[in-house]
């Protein structure tokens, strides 16, 4: 057994790593501005949005052992909540008697509600199983929703909905300004991480983690395990819905491809890459995946024109090496082995 670090130490390696990450995140727009590369702020915003989605997946995958292969569906549904209300706002029509709106204080909570409401039946049915059947059923539900959105001609069908205005927030917050939007997303991500941290360490979180370790024993102790897992699944769905609302604002577009199974796969890759069951790890995972996706193809094209489209040939070995040599992913590498 390695000796455990004294509990009184204030600056442990994970804490230092967290502070550095936060400092980098806070300084990023200023640095990008100084470098004359405003594009980096938009890229970083995208990273934070996907980080939020990946963190929500980690809550159920990393802590609850629920390998949901359909998590992008809840992201997509959150995005569509924004897109659909925008569409009604722009043509002045109503939805169930209500006018459309682009007010973020209404639309974003509704996106979370939509994510949660979608996760409820999906979870209630798929949590009757575990292991591979659970993976397949969540995947099947997500694909059903994908095709549903594809067929939803009233809201663009295949083409999705192009947004020509972002959600409005109370003054002075104007997310049409890239830097403001970046900080809003950062604030929401930090809030989600704090919430997640409380959650996994609460009594509720212990039940979820216990169920991951040994579900049979949990039942023998008297826990109605499925009920707790379902609540966790719904919470994750709500956070994914919020990520979807932010994604719609970041790209000014929503479409069925947001719900596609490959997006769910990307989210799992982010969680695995960053560190399963670490909460903060998936943020690193999202950054790593999106940065690789952004820059590796460019570099490969430099070496040989056209090579860039095969960039995943680089991603594969990186993933394999991390899974083999860093059990807690990138966060494990950064923060060291935690006791």
């Amino acid at each position, binding site marked *: *057994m390695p000796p*455990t670090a004294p509990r009184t130490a204030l600056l442990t390696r994970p804490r230092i790593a967290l502070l550095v990450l936060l400092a980098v995140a806070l300084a990023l727009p200023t640095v990008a501005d100084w470098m004359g590369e405003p594009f980096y702020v938009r890229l970083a915003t995208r990273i934070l949005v996907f980080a939020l989605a990946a963190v929500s997946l980690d809550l159920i995958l990393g802590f609850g052992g629920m390998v949901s292969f359909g998590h992008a569906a809840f992201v997509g549904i959150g995005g569509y909540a924004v897109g659909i209300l925008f569409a009604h706002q722009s043509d002045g029509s109503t939805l169930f008697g209500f006018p459309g709106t682009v007010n973020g204080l209404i639309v974003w909570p509704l996106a979370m509600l939509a994510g949660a409401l979608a996760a409820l039946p999906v979870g209630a049915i798929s949590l009757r199983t575990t292991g591979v059947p659970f993976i397949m059923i969540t995947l099947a539900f997500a694909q059903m929703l994908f095709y549903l959105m594809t067929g939803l001609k009233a809201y663009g069908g295949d083409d999705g909905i192009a947004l020509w205005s972002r959600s409005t927030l109370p003054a002075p917050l104007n997310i049409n300004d890239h830097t403001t939007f970046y900080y809003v997303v950062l604030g929401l991500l930090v809030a989600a991480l704090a919430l997640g941290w*409380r*959650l996994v*360490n*609460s*009594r*509720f*979180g*212990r*039940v979820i*983690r*216990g169920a991951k*370790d*040994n579900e*049979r*024993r*949990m*039942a*023998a*102790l*008297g*826990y*109605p*395990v499925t009920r*707790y897992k379902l*609540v966790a699944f719904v919470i994750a769905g709500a956070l994914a819905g919020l990520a979807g609302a932010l994604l719609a604002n970041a790209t000014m577009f929503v479409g069925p491809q947001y719900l596609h199974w490959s997006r769910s796969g990307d989210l799992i890759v982010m969680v695995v890459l960053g560190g399963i069951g670490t909460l903060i790890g998936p943020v690193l995972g999202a950054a790593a995946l999106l940065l690789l996706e952004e820059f590796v193809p460019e570099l490969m094209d430099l070496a040989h024109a056209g090579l860039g489209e095969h960039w995943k040939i680089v991603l594969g070995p990186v993933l394999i090496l991390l899974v083999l040599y860093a059990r807690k992913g990138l966060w494990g590498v950064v923060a060291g082995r935690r006791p």
Partner: protein
Amino acid sequence: MSTPLLSTDSLVKRFGGLAATDGLSLSVAEGELHALIGPNGAGKTTLIGQLSGELTPDSGTILFDGRDVTRLPVHKRAQRGLARSFQITSIFPSFTALDNVALAVQAHAGHSFRFWRDAGRDRRLADPARAVLERVGLGARADTRADALAHGEKRQLELAMALATRPRLLLLDEPMAGMGPEDSARMVELLQELKGGVTILLVEHDMDAVFALADRITVLVRGKDLASGTPAEIRNDPAVREAYLGDELEVA
């Protein structure tokens, strides 16, 4: 005689053509330590499965505390005070020994839809958990991860978790399985202390332990109750000697 705490009436469980439990009627009185013995394949594990709720009998009923629990799911039986330990150690490997027991305390403390407070600093969980760990002799190992415990310690932890739910009935499925003589002796000592305070149904292969501990013994052979009685009665029962004890002696 007062109503037994646990009883089964004509319980039957078949796997294909094999009747693993064959019309079994068993009763465990409040406060007693009732041992269940029988050769391999006698249906002991199948019976424990049905009592705890993991298996549903094909026919017959199970009464616990005067109520029919035959079709009640596992967690509801546990909530009513029917705790079990597992033959193959079943703990939470990534939790510390203390947190393993704290989870059991928490199970007894009502619902766990509490999302905010840090459960690790909740003394209402940690204090009772520590007390139970002390009781089974694991106090010094409280902060060790469960998967790093020695085999004997894991068995003690297994028992601690069952105890921490403050059960009315403990179903102990071979608590001494795989233990060396020293650990076994400690476990016997521990069960001796628990005896009387909590009703226990003990399934065990260690005959010395069974005859030292039990108030009553039921001998199970091919899913049927071959004999029930005090240790002395069982020891002198010719049918038991023929069907089981003699057998066992030869093997040993």
